[in-house]
């Protein structure tokens, strides 16, 4: 057990400068897919609520498909399904992108979290009190300005508790990356287990790392909620 920890503590935490792994890789996957997914979902959620019917329908179809299928299946489709197409292999730029497992996982996670966050934000936008909208309209807000200044700031605040849940789910989902050879915490644990055949120690370390990450995220989001949700009456 001591040998395992001695040999694997560095890969578990950050790996080496030119081959990051473990905790650092998991954090990287989580942060990138959350940031990109959020950036994409913002316009999508507005389109889902206020766009023309055709666009609304398209966004709905997108979230329906990506929320209705397991992330693991999506990951496999992107990682092996698309990559095995000769069309993709014969196009240099696209081939280079899909060849790297890290790109594929980032793409899959981003799309997946984007679909969930779009629905979540759309719900928050729809829950905007009518009075707020009427007040804003009556003093001359309209179109994009209305959304940028009134609707989104209040909807984003209201969505914060649900969004913190989604970020933690994404963090947990990143453990799937190990199935397509990306060296995250779980992949290191599997390697360590294969070396020493001490599954409880190897996966236990991984579980502790994930649990502490989760706790840290929860604390951060609680701080954020205290800061930005002060104006709302305390619920729960």
């Amino acid at each position: 057990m001591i040998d395992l920890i001695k040999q694997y503590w560095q890969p578990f935490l950050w790996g080496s400068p030119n081959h990051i792994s473990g905790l650092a890789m998991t954090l990287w996957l989580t942060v990138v897919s959350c940031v990109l997914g959020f950036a994409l979902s913002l316009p999508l959620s507005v389109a889902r609520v206020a766009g023309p019917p055709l666009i609304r329908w398209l966004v709905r179809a997108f979230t329906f498909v990506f929320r209705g299928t397991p992330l693991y299946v999506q990951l496999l489709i992107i990682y092996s399904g698309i990559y095995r197409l000769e069309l993709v292999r014969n196009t240099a730029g696209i081939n280079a992108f899909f060849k790297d497992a890290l790109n594929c996982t980032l793409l899959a996670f981003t799309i997946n979290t984007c679909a969930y966050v779009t629905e979540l934000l759309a719900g928050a936008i729809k829950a905007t009190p009518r009075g707020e909208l009427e007040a804003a309209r009556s003093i001359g807000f309209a179109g994009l300005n209305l959304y940028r200044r009134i609707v989104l700031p209040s909807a984003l605040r209201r969505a914060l508790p649900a969004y913190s849940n989604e970020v933690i789910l994404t963090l947990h989902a990143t453990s799937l990356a190990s199935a397509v050879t990306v060296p995250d915490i779980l992949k290191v644990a599997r390697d360590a287990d294969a070396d020493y055949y001490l599954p409880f120690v190897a996966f236990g370390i991984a579980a502790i790392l994930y649990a502490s990450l989760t706790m840290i995220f929860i604390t951060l989001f609680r701080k954020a909620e205290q800061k930005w949700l002060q104006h709302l009456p305390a619920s729960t």
Partner: protein
Amino acid sequence: MGAASRLSSHRWLTIPGTIYTTLVRSVPDLVLMLLLYYSVQNWVNLLTDALGQPQIEIDPFLAGVSVLGFIYGAYFTETLRGAVRAVPRGQLEAAAAFGLGPWQIFWRILFPQMMRFALPGISNNWQVILKATALVSIIGLPEVIYAAQAAIKGSNWPGGAHVLFYLSAVALLYLGLTTLSNFLFAYLEKRFAAGFEQLAR
């Protein structure tokens, strides 16, 4: 499997219950699955070796079901706990005042009312479990992804489209299942909300 998780969610002795739900819910399900599956097998092997018995292989189906049950039992516990607390205390006190026994109170008073609050959460959990079953192929259970991978190995289409085809078929299958269960839960929610005003949607 739903029944298994429900059974494991029934013991809530406060402190062990809290530790169980907090720990299980803060670790990814895949990590727990590998942790439990491999370590339990390992311990069984050590035990049988110590007793000088032949090794016992844990049946992967049984292992998959019980591990999923163990993990999602934690999520169900939290859902049900919230639902139980949402039932007004007066209802239970009134039932006790009428002389109903604990089991009668549970089945006739608490359960029908708490299901109304629990159903949205249960349906959410159900959807998550449905999608989590995709993971058991990683511990070697022959479910749909496993079957698709076998089909992929056995065929070779020009243009390499067979991989995409079989995997998309799996995705469609899951999509059908989630849609179907959505309808089912919508029906159940309506049934248990009988007598309550519907919220405007």
